[in-house]
């Protein structure tokens, strides 16, 4: 293994520089290609490694494609004919394939007859860095940066010289810095103490690994220097981790807020204890899944579309619930709790029987996966970042609706004095429907967001219903601001506790805290004061 790691990318780089790269002379006898691939189809991974090396050296222009497909596990071989093919789509039983040598369409083949040319993590790692080297020559700066980052910790003797030249010709400072560090790590591995200077202050985890292993070096000087550099890095990391925890907290909080805000309306404003709220969230999530099924291949678009769709579906479901159950339970909130609990059971089992008891896959679009790098040590996961933003937007919109629109006015009127509102010509029933639809719709939105974070399955709802109630009650029933503050603060508290208390204990502590808090402030963070609130 080690040997290959050493040789592989270097060789690749060398032949690039010697100019026999994918533009090289066209030795197009498929014979050679066949032979190269034959050698790939070897039992041992060492043999495979050598084969890969051979492919690289061959400078065959198809090699890049081959390596990519090999990496993706799509390069396969027909058991009987021994023909090499590239699988295009490998989900059902018969797979469309193209010829691996000519890249021409080869119809469909049954997965029974195909042998995958397997690689393992070790090989994968090396292939990646090999391909990374290639990317050093693309025009896109970001690709070059990623490539350079990929090379951290995988530089070796034969690469050093060529890399130097690359650095010389590289115009992007960031890429240069990264490559310098890559070299430095290599030099450090050779025991060069000066190398440490180049690594100081880098928060990149691979750099830290390198330094860490350097601290175990036999040369005491190197060891000390390394640990010194490390200490400095750790220092910076501490600040980072502080920020990180805060972000974690806010992100968890935003989830809680999203889940609870719909409840804050149905429960806080209408006084309806909707136990099916969780299932409405679930419906939103399933809508996202459905949209992605309808629009295969473009998860991003599907996700965007499912925002209105999710809202609608959940809202309609809400209306159905309101008409069929809740309207009969006016002024009996605790009864609504019981009835809607029944509804939630039904909805869950409905999903199980109609769709499936299994979880469904919801794909994250490109622009929502990965993370936004603030610095080498601190990066914010994109999906959560989006959810956080989404939560705030939803909240803002709700505030607008409640404060600025006719509906909001009527809602507040009806909740404060039904009879009075009626006599002033407000159609209370209609308002009820609208309010409940609104709350449910928001739940649907929560579902859409949650589909990006967690399971989309029949149990999705149950996992959030209790937390949601906690948040609303903690924040003060009937107060949207309360819900926002409560959700975010609970999230942060939880995440701050977690590192030293552990996940379970943290949650318990939070619950106990809520209980005690309610003792102190029986009406939550932002209670409604005055006689109106009294029984």
């Amino acid at each position, binding site marked *: 293994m080690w040997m290959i790691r050493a040789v592989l990318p270097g060789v690749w780089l060398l032949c690039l520089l010697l100019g026999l790269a994918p533009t090289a002379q066209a030795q197009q006898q498929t014979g050679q290609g066949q032979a190269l691939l034959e050698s790939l189809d070897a039992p041992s991974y060492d043999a495979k490694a050598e084969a890969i090396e051979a492919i690289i050296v061959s400078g065959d222009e198809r090699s890049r494609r081959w390596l990519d497909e090999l990496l993706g596990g799509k390069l396969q071989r027909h058991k009987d004919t021994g023909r090499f093919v590239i699988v295009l789509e490998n989900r059902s039983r018969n797979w469309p394939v193209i010829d691996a040598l000519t890249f021409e369409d080869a119809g469909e083949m049954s997965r029974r007859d195909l042998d995958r040319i397997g690689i393992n993590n070790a090989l994968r790692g090396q292939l990646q860095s090999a391909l990374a080297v290639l990317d050093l020559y693309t025009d896109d700066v970001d690709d070059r940066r990623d490539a350079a980052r990929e090379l951290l910790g995988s530089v070796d003797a034969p690469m050093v010289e060529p890399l130097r030249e690359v650095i010389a010709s590289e115009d992007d400072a960031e890429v240069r810095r990264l490559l310098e560090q890559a070299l430095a790590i290599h030099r450090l591995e050779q025991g060069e103490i000066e190398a440490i200077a180049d690594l100081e202050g880098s928060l990149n985890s691979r750099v830290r690994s390198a330094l860490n292993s350097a601290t175990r070096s036999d040369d005491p000087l190197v060891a000390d220097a390394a640990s010194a550099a490390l200490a400095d890095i750790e220092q910076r990391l501490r600040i980072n981790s502080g920020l990180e925890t805060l972000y974690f907290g806010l992100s968890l909080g935003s989830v809680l807020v999203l889940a609870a805000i719909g409840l804050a309306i149905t429960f806080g404003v209408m006084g309806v204890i909707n136990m099916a709220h969780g299932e409405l969230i679930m419906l939103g999530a399933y809508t996202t899944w459905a949209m992605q099924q309808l629009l295969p291949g473009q998860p991003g678009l599907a996700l965007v579309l499912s925002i209105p769709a999710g809202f609608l579906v959940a809202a309609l479901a809400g209306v159905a619930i309101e008409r069929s159950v809740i309207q009969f339970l006016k*002024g009996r909130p605790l*009864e609504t*709790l*019981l*009835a809607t609990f029944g509804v939630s*059971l039904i909805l869950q*089992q409905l999903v199980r029987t109609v769709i499936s008891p299994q979880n469904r896959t919801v794909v994250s679009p490109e622009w929502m996966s990965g993370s936004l790098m603030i610095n080498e040590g601190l990066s914010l996961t994109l999906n959560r970042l989006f959810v956080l933003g989404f939560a705030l937007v939803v909240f803002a919109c709700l505030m607008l609706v409640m404060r600025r629109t006719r509906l909001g006015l009527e809602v507040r009127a009806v909740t404060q004095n039904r009879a009075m509102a009626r006599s002033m010509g407000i159609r209370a029933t209609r308002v009820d429907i609208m309010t409940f639809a609104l709350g449910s719709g928001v739940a649907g939105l929560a579902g859409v967001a949650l589909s990006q974070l967690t399971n989309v399955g029949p149990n999705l709802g149950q996992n959030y219903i209790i937390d949601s109630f906690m948040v609303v009650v903690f924040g003060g029933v009937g107060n949207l601001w309360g819900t926002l503050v409560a959700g975010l603060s609970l999230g942060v508290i939880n995440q701050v506790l977690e590192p030293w208390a552990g996940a379970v204990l943290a949650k318990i502590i939070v619950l106990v805290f809520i209980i005690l808090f309610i003792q102190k402030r029986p009406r939550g963070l932002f209670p409604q004061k005055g006689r109106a609130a009294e029984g």
Partner: protein
Amino acid sequence: MWLMQPFNEGATRLFLGVLLACLALVTVLHLAVPAGHPLHVSAYTVTLLGKYLSYALLAVAVDLVWGYLGILSLGHGAFFALGGYAMGMYLMRQIGDRGTYGDPILPDFMVFLNWDSLPWYWLGFDMPWFAFLMVMLVPGALALVFGFLAFRSRVTGVYLSIITQAMTFALMLAFFRNEMGFGGNNGLTDFRELLGFDLRTDATRLGLFIATGVALALGYVLCRAIVASKLGRVSVACRDAEARTRFLGYRVERFQLFVFVVSAMLAGVAGALYVPQVGIINPSEFSPIFSIEIVLWVALGGRGTLYGAVIGALLVNYAKTVFTGVMPDAWLFALGGMFVLVTVFLPRGVAGLLAYRFKGQGFKRGSNETLSHDISKEASA
């Protein structure tokens, strides 16, 4: 003597009569009628009924606080489970060296988690009297502390319901932790004998069934006695017009606390009777969903009429048994539908229906239209 009061009530006499008759009937049909005969009641059924009865006792406890005190506790499962754990710990100690590892003191799960000695809170549970005492004291103590805090600061209506839910939820998470020393998710199981009786014999099962029935009868009488006393009337007063009751000079919070604790203890007893019959106790009994279900039994049977709670508990659980057997894939529809229909169309539950027939003592009070008052109050909370 106030405890004897209920025996003068027609309704109570009727209820006790039916209950005891059923106990006798089942016993006879189980012992006298030969197996295979269509009228034979199998040991399986007996245990099942025993389980239902312990649920019924639990429902009575909940109805006492919800029906008569207007406190909707979504955390009574916690008291039930605590009682169950107290009993479970006793049963675990009874296993002695017959566990898989043959350790004379430590339960199996402690052995393979490398506990070298019993944690302090397991001490004494080898003595039945102590364990049975704990069955009531532990839930009682929790109720006392929790209730004291809650009622003192006048947490009412929905707020109270939600924090009771928080309480049981927190306890569930806590008991899931293996460090707690209660067997974590697996809980306590593999029980062998209770007071020297082998739990795996039908005779013991019948005994447990009868014991549960008697416990239910006693619990019912106790609750009726409380309800029929002046204290019961004060509770109803607290339920319907808390402020007014205060201005009459009653310390509402103390009355609430008293009834709450009594109810918690009853729930504990129910749990203790439940465990040896189902053969396992684990944190899932703490789950808020279970507590909500209990409330549903009461609502379905008819809130504010103790016997209604009993009917509700029996009906729902029987239905559950039947459905999960007859329509495994669809039983949740049936159950869910049942809850919806009853709450919407039978606001007074099954008891409401019965009430049209008889109009005896104890049927009048606490029927639902009189509840509208406190509920609209809860609405504003």
